[in-house]
């Protein structure tokens, strides 16, 4: 069903809520060195943790098969 825009109704939206307004991106922010370092550390934490989870998963499978 095609909906017809009613200007009186659309005034109940804030300008930044309009779908056309959302197409305009926010400007890029520069991250500080400290912030980058923490984010890289957290990324390493995930990368190092996942093999341990995979090991635990395979270990549980092996136990079930036995």
């Amino acid at each position, binding site marked *: 069903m095609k909906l017809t825009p009613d200007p009186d109704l659309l005034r109940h939206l804030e*300008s930044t809520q309009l779908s056309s307004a959302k197409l305009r991106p926010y400007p890029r922010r520069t991250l500080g060195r400290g912030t980058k370092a923490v*984010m890289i550390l957290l990324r390493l934490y995930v990368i190092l*943790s996942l093999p341990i*989870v995979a090991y635990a*998963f395979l270990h549980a499978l092996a136990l079930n098969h036995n």
Partner: protein
Amino acid sequence: MDNEVLAAIPGLADDEFTREDILRARDRLKVQQSRTSKRWLRLIWLLAGPGILVMLGENDGPSMVSYATTGATYGVGFFVPFILLTFVMAYIVQEMTVRLGVATHRGHAELIFQRFGRFWGYFAMGDLVFGNVLTLVTEFIAIQAGGLYFGLPAWASVAFGVTLVILSLGLRRYATWERALLCLAACNLLFIPAALCAHPNGAAIARAIATWRPLHGTIGTAFITLVLANIGATVTPWMIFFQQSAVVDKGLTRADLTQGRIDTAIGAAIAAIAAIATVVAASPLFRAHVDVSQFASGADFATALKPLIGTTGATLFALGIIEAGLIAAMTISTSSSYALAETLSAKHSLNLDFAAGGLFYGAAIISTFIAAGIVLIPGAPLLAMTLTVNVIATLLMAPAMMLLLLLVNDREIMGNLANTWRANLAGGTIVVGICLAGATYGVITVFPNLLGK
């Protein structure tokens, strides 16, 4: 009324207003009428939804299995107040997403891409998609397991789940979708009458909350694993992405922040009650010394509880497990859709029709089919997957929480809604706590005999 709108609207051609704008404006009209007439309860009713859905969505299949395992292993004691604490933690995290949503009117994924660039954006999306697909699989495991209790074949339960997810997306109206899911989510409360069938001792529950005791047994590997599973049962990355996008899709503004917070608090309270009810419902297994370590799913809990809490209680338990899987399948698949469409700068709203929202709806439907298909693979290690998913969710939460803290401290986009030092202290404590919990898990996995059983 926002003066910017009065200036902006005449400048736009009619064809620049979409179905999404018109439907959202109708919802906003109702909200503004309620606010003007000071009908506060109706205002909360109109603005509630994202917070309750995200909290009850996280009371999903694997979470309820974790709570049942907790009740069956430790009874009513230490874990009752611990679960309450994890929901306080969930409120702290999710309240930040409400502020981000009302301040920016943007979803979480698009904010990460726009403010931090593609490098961090793709990492965040990779984490989300990985975690969501795995979690979605476990939701279908729960639906299938609940169906088995009632004698339904696996394919029938899974087909039922897939059909409901697709039908919910077919509503093509955020407000209707949300209300339909809220009705279904109310069934999470089935765990309360199930708990009453276990004839709980109210004084023992009150004493456990006040004293954090008793804690039966030693603090060993099983205890640490359940601590992690219960944390993973309350805070996960998909919740951050989902609630922020839902707040934006619903059209909440800065004026609605209080109601958004109330919605989140109500959701946390209801979900905590349902979680504790699950612990209480399963506690007769602890008193009967039943070994739950070989249980494969929520259906096994229901079957084992039948002679202890009766057929009614066991049936309510199994129905609750099905509901937990269904509601989470709907919210998690939608969370993937929002995030993927935001990343690809495609239209993303449950107010879109199928022609305009092909990618948005397609992502939810395809991820649902993939998860359902994996569950039906003969011999798939379903129990191991269920347990592993909660752990992965906990590990992925630390970088997701860091990105959330960076965004919510960004005064250029948040203005006066940026985090206070208290919120940063609470958020930072959660990041450190989750990292320590993950590290502890790593150590006990590699050195399983370090703490004993």
